[in-house]
């Protein structure tokens, strides 16, 4: 695998169409509550993708939406719900009543998700941990095994590697080849990026390669590992992007209230996903509220010089 000769800078529609087939294992929401690629989730829903396996530590309401839309067969996540507003109604309907379809849940923890992806990034079949010993979480033998430290005989839990088909990751800025800068809490983003067969980046800005190369320590992963770059400003709303916009707390509350019933969920989906052709239309529907979220207090990083 090397750099692709054709351009990687594509529309979100094309990126999802090419790199998220039915049945794919997709990792998203890797920074936890920030930089969640909601725009990509919505496009997956619009394209009617089915039987996905979703992987992530927590996803705030992104996984809830995909589950409610019937795109998901399986979830490997430490927590699914609505972080600031409470539980995820669609998730509960699916797991408790099989509506709109049953979803299999693989219990795990945040650290175990991180270790599984780290193992995938490192190219080893598992990583050991002392976490979750004695917990009922690691029940599934295809994902966890008990083992002894060969030097001391002490118990350890082995967490099996995950190498997702695709990681969909949001970044502040990328060049057209996928060399990208990400800042803020990183969560499991680096591990997810390196573990996955394909990486799709949603960039708030697409910048000249010289901007990225001026600060190679801030690069998420090298462009040769990236399959598609999507210029998608506002693509993470209602989650925040440091330096670009704040979290829309009320939006989560509204989603929580609106989706209590299945009809309510359907209506929400029509309004915010199905009726809208793309992210631009979504931001237009948000209107002045979107502008308000972008009124920020500056906090510039101290200068750094790679003088040589």
């Amino acid at each position, binding site marked *: 695998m090397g750099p692709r000769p054709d351009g990687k800078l594509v529309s979100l529609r094309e990126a999802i169409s090419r790199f998220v087939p039915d049945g794919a294992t997709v990792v998203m929401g890797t920074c936890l509550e920030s930089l969640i690629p909601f725009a990509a989730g919505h496009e997956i829903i619009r394209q009617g993708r089915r039987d996905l396996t979703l992987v992530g530590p927590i996803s705030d309401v992104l996984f809830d939406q995909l589950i409610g839309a019937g795109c998901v067969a399986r979830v490997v996540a430490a927590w699914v719900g609505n972080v600031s507003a*409470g539980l995820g109604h669609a*998730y509960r309907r699916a797991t408790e009543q099989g509506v709109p379809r049953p979803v299999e849940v693989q219990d795990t923890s945040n650290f175990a998700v991180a270790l599984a992806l780290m193992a995938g990034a490192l190219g080893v079949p598992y990583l050991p941990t002392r976490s979750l010993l004695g917990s*009922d979480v690691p029940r599934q033998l295809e994902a966890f095994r008990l083992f002894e430290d060969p030097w001391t005989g002490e118990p350890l839990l082995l967490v099996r590697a995950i190498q997702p088909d695709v990681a969909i990751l949001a970044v502040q800025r990328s060049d057209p080849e996928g060399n990208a800068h990400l800042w803020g809490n990183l969560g499991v983003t680096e591990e997810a990026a390196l573990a996955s067969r394909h990486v799709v980046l949603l960039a708030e800005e697409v910048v000249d390669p010289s901007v990225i190369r001026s600060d190679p320590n801030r690069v998420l992963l090298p462009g040769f590992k990236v399959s598609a770059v999507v210029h998608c400003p506002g693509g993470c709303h209602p989650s925040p992007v440091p330096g670009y916009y704040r979290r829309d707390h009320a939006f989560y509350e509204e989603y929580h209230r609106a989706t209590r019933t299945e009809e309510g969920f359907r209506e929400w989906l029509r309004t915010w996903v199905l009726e809208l052709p793309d992210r631009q239309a979504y931001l237009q529907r948000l209107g002045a509220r979107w502008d308000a979220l972008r009124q920020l207090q500056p906090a510039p990083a101290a200068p750094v010089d790679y003088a040589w």
Partner: protein
Amino acid sequence: MVRDVADWSVGELMVVAASREIRDGEVVFVGMRLPLLAYCVAKRLHAPRSVGIFENGIVRDVPTPQLLYTMSDTPNIVGAVWCTRMANVMGLLQRGDVDVGFIGGAQVDRFGNVNSSYIGDPHHPQVKLPGSGGAADIASLAKRLVVILPHGRHRLVQRVDFRTSPGYGDGPGWRQRVGLPRGGPSAIITDRAVFRFDPQTCEAVLHHWHPRQSLQEVVENTGWPVRVADGASPTPEPSAEELRVLREYDPEGVWTGNRNRADR
């Protein structure tokens, strides 16, 4: 909205009780909501040199400039001393560098095991809860664990339906037997009481019951036969100073129950 000191809410009392679990200079694995507020109160008052760690990869030793709704809100990054990968902060936890962690949950039993996964049979659950998040990791690896949850007979149960976050398992010696390197619960803080754990039997023992109710009410609302500590007493009320600091940070009581929110 300026509120009277005597007008503390139970949520505020819980936050203050939790803050008192943090000692100066300690490294604290901070959860969201009440634990976050507890960390802010402790930091401002009696634990100025404590360090807060968030599982999304943030380490900070000054309070945030604004109330947080999630740990990844942008104000939590400003002034942080480290923004990094989750694996690094979980590594600190696993190495034994974290003194105390806070978690919530739907059920806890008298050995401090916590369930945040399933109500009923895990294979055919009556309720599917959101899951562990980082709670099981914190419960496994922190030196001390504080569990915070609402009180009730279906919450404080004889035996949890699913052991998401390990406490003392079935009693003395269990953590060592399963291979957990350290730790275990040191307190359960509810909206009715504070329990601590007997080092010999590993059982939760009632140490404080909150004002505005009786010890008897606590006992009746607990799903196991309550052992009451010698010298058990009403929970000390929040001081004016504690309430002032807490209300500076959360003036509208978003997380302390003054704003009404259903189905948590």
